[in-house]
């Protein structure tokens, strides 16, 4: 760009050399700056066609963006959010028909629920009377309030369906077999936590639906053997409505203010934190156990008898 101007006289021309004076000189200068800026703007626009070559992009992603396998691998491994993935996977494992994507969708729904859940917390007080009013207010007056609440509700329902389907596919593909036994157990805990998350949230609007659902649910705790006042052997251990396991769950003998507060804390803090910890372990184990279990080559009966240690039992350590 600079060369274009090399022909023009230097700006600081000595005053004795006759040159344009006053307004004309200023206009000239403006014109000059103008051409320079237009040139620069064109250049910037041109660079937008390849944003991955810009200094800003490079400062964020640190890795060359091209189709070499090195860059592709580094792009995943050096990214804090993506590095849970290996850099390469079994070519058939990306097929939808093997995993149905259910584990990933379940996790995504958990993220959506955390996001919408935190937003809901801005509008919600876990106290009798106020809780219900907050929900009514949210549904009628808060901008996008009903969208927010609906998304939280429906994502929760969807998450239960996807976690069931995920378990179903893991079973059907025999993915709990060696060396993934323990990750299946972690999964079962996650299943229980998912159901409990949904259940504790049910009470929070403090409406008839939640109240009676939780009443029905916790009434069963009365019948806990040994620990419930109506359960087998409960009276033998001096269980009463005021000291049994149901009392501990509700913080009282009826579903009331204490139960609402307990449900709130379980729902918004305790269970999400516990579930996150288990998810971290779950994903970590998927990696450590050699990635997704398949689609693996089929094994024949006679081979399974012959080989003491089966070929697929050896985990392919990726790191």
């Amino acid at each position: 760009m600079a060369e274009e101007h090399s022909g023009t006289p230097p700006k600081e021309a000595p005053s004795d050399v006759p040159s344009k004076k006053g307004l004309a000189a200023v206009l000239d200068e403006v014109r000059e700056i103008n051409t320079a800026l237009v040139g620069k703007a064109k250049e910037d626009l041109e660079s937008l066609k390849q944003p991955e070559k810009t200094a800003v992009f490079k400062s964020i992603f640190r890795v060359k963006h091209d189709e070499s396998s090195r860059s592709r691998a580094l792009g995943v491994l050096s990214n804090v959010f993506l590095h849970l993935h290996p850099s390469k996977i079994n070519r058939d494992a990306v097929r939808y028909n093997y995993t149905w994507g259910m584990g990933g969708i379940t996790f995504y729904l958990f993220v959506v629920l955390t996001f919408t859940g935190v937003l809901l917390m801005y509008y919600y007080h876990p106290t009798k009377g106020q809780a219900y009013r907050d929900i009514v207010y949210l549904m009628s007056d808060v901008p996008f309030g009903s969208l927010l609440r609906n998304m939280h509700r429906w994502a929760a329902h969807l998450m239960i369906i996807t976690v069931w389907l995920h378990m179903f596919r893991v079973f059907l593909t025999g993915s709990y077999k060696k060396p993934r036994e323990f990750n299946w157990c972690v999964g079962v805990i996650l299943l229980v936590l998912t159901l409990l998350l949904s259940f504790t949230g049910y009470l929070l609007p403090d409406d008839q639906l939640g109240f009676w659902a939780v009443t029905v649910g916790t009434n069963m705790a009365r019948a806990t053997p040994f620990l419930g006042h109506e359960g087998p052997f409960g009276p033998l251990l001096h269980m009463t409505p005021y000291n049994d396991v149901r009392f501990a769950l509700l913080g009282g003998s009826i579903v009331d203010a204490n139960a609402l507060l307990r449900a709130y804390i379980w729902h918004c803090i305790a269970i999400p934190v516990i579930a996150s910890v288990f998810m971290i372990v779950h994903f970590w184990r998927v990696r450590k156990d050699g990635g997704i279990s398949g689609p693996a080559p089929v094994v024949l009966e006679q081979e399974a008898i012959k080989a003491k240690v089966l070929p697929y039992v050896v985990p392919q350590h990726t790191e």
Partner: protein
Amino acid sequence: MDWHQLWEITSAPDNVPIVALILLVPFYTWYGIRQALANDRLIAQLEADPQLAKTHHRKTMPWKAGWSKEIPVWPYLLRIEFLAAIVVTVILMVWSITLNAPLEELANPNLTMNPAKAPWYFLGLQEMLVYFDPWMAGVVMPSLIIVGLIVIPYIDANPLGAGYYTWKQRRFAISTFCFGFLFLWLLMVVIGTFIRGPGWMWFWPGQTWDPNNQVFEVNRDLPDLFRITNIWGKTIFGAIVMGIYFAVSGGVVHKLFTWSDWNKKVFAKMSFLQYITMQGFLTIMMLLPIKILIRHLFRIKYIWVTPWFNL
């Protein structure tokens, strides 16, 4: 036919997940079984042709010499994940814009909801209350389901079928799991949602949910049929019947389990603890369908009556 009632139940926003379940579960069951059968055909082919078994890549997916076994996660996996996230978000958005989450009247302990239903995903347990006392349906059974799921990897001694869909190599495991999951859990959820009306009465689809509906059904306990009136007599009698039940159903489970020649070998590999755990969970699971049957066929409520609990 009360179409209005039927529509009211199926279109209730909170029942949408169950409607979705009714569509999704059969779809994915079919989707999995279809792949299982395709793999089974491949297995049969390879078993018949040992030479082919040595060279075949052993998957039903296409394969060409020279293809690398692995592909980069970026872009081949990540683009699918991003796409899935977008699709799920769009579904949620549309669902949330069209249907409002239910909000009933303010909670009122003095005004009982009829029917008072647990959240839909626990309706299986609530449905079990018809056949078992709360300590069993609400506490023991859920705990056994959780523990039973956890022990699955440790009692399934069959090394085949890890990492691919198959029916032929895992018939027993797949049929028992599907029976428990599809019939004893999901079907109960569907019944609890669509069939159970006020008073937890059975209403066929299209029947009006009449809260005054009464069923005059006299249930009896098994000891009554044998004219046993003394409570200790009932206790001992019930214990004997339960013993007989576990012996017989254990025998049936064993026969089914060792039906195939392959499973006879799996059985030979199993430890005592593995075997007895499997037997325990399966025979207890079968208590539910058995109790459903004897309730509806013979109107029998309890098998075992004791001073502390009834079963």
